[in-house]
């Protein structure tokens, strides 16, 4: 079953801005799906339509088989939304926000209190449960919105840039948490500007640009399109910039080299070339911008086609 099934969704805002130009998209139940696109591409409009915060101009949306035009409340009950901007009452404490939210979904107060305690503890907010939300840090506010979205135990969780402005430590703990709930069966749709985040978490990916879905495929097959991969080598300071007839080498600082390796080539060859030039390799890692390269390539291709 599809968690969401969008069919030819169009959205024209007042003033004639065409935000979505007929998007059709299916996301399988249990998937961890990345929805990417440059600013203003239509990602948030798309998410707004799925979560019923934005009225579509035409097309149809169904969530776990519930049509949003005819079974709106059943469809809404399946979705948990973590929006891009903080949208809770800044004067209310986290515990109260979660209990109220559960109430809107028909969850009894007694059960809501239990669930709120569970999620606040899981997301390290329990100590702040009675503090006005405006006093929370940016990372805590993001986690509070995730806890709020999970209060009614949705089957589909939509996260619109959930880690924006969050430090790397908190971001990684949020990734772990999201992976955990995805493994428990919750379908997740994620928009993010951190492409590394999408690459690390998501199995499938859609790219929206100028209101059109320009790509919709698995992360693996998208990344497989990369002809080359870039590796970063930490080396002892070389006396000269190494040269190679086979590889493109850049020195980014005194002790770091970036080497592009074609898929057909072997890494052994890289090591032997460096060794032959007297360069000692201390460590090596992937440059994690593979998706970024493809993303830029796809968006630029779209621009040229337009």
């Amino acid at each position, binding site marked *: 079953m599809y968690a969401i099934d969008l069919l030819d969704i169009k959205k024209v805002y007042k003033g004639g801005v065409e935000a979505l130009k007929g998007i059709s998209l299916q996301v399988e139940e249990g998937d961890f799906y990345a929805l990417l696109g440059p600013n203003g591409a239509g990602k948030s409009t798309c998410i707004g339509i799925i979560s019923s*915060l934005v*009225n579509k101009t035409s097309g149809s949306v169904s969530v776990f088989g519930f049509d949003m035009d005819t079974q709106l409340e059943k469809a809404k009950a399946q979705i948990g*939304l973590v929006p891009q901007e903080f949208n809770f*009452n800044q004067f209310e404490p986290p515990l*109260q926000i979660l209990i109220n939210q559960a*109430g809107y*979904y028909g969850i009894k107060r007694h059960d809501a209190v239990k669930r709120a305690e569970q999620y606040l503890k899981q997301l390290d907010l329990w100590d702040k449960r009675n503090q006005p939300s405006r006093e929370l840090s940016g990372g805590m506010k993001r986690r509070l919105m995730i806890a*709020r979205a999970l209060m009614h135990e949705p089957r589909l969780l939509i996260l619109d840039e959930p880690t924006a402005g969050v430090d790397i430590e908190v971001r990684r703990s949020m990734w772990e948490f999201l992976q955990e709930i995805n493994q428990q069966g919750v379908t997740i749709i994620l928009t993010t500007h951190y492409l590394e985040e999408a690459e690390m978490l998501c199995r499938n990916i859609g790219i929206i640009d100028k209101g059109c879905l320009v790509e919709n495929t698995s992360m693996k097959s998208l990344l497989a399109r990369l002809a080359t991969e870039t590796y970063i080598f930490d080396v002892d300071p070389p006396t000269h910039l190494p040269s190679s007839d086979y590889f493109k080498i850049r020195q980014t600082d005194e002790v770091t080299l970036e080497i592009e390796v074609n898929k057909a080539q072997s890494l052994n060859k890289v090591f032997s070339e460096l060794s032959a030039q007297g360069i000692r390799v201390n460590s090596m890692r992937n440059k994690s911008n593979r998706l970024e390269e493809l993303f830029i390539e796809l968006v630029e291709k779209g621009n040229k086609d337009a």
Partner: protein
Amino acid sequence: MLNSNYLIALHSILRKETNRFLRIWIQTLVPPVITMSLYFVIFGNLIGSRIGQMNGFDYMSFIVPGLIMMSVITNSYSNVASSFFSAKFQRNVEELLVAPVPNYIIIWGYVGGGVARGLIVGFLVTCVSLFFVDLHIFNIFILILSVLCTSVLFSIGGLLNAIFAKSFDDISIIPTFVLTPLTYLGGVFYSVSLLPGFWQTVSHFNPVFYMINAFRYGFLGIADVSLVWSFTVIGLFIIVLYSIVAILLKKGIGVRS
């Protein structure tokens, strides 16, 4: 979602709305009580004693029902207008819009909050008025029905205002330029029978006049127009405003993109 779930949702909105104005009681409950106390002292005691009787009652007894109703009207209205607009402004209204809560539950949840504040303020003002006048209740049923209907009507009005409002200025314009004149000209301080014929007719187009008329009847047993007509007008206004609000929310005007 079953009906019991709707009730839980309604209860959650009501609880949130009630907690909101109780948490800031210094801003929401105390000022109207102080303002009305000043009205009692100045218009009732100081000036009223020189005015004499109005429709067979001393002036203080005559204006107390109108002043109580005035506080109920302004507080019911401003509670919903400011609360719903704040929810729009902070975007936490989205919590309700994404949830499987029907629009009528949202409307009655917010209206319930407005009614609660209106009635609490009305009760407090009534208690204060006992320091100035011996209140007698002529018909408790009419009294409760009229204050309840009025509170509901102006809470819906506040919601309508908040739906259209785009800034905090927009939620103060209607109370200042529409609500206050209607209330003052609705017979709080005088009997419309004292007005010249033309202005008496004009007063009959003022909905607040019917509310004060019915409420005053509940206390004093006197009315400028029939109670049936008063409640009919109030009922019609409730139906019309409720329908407008329901249509706006259904279309998403003012709340959805």
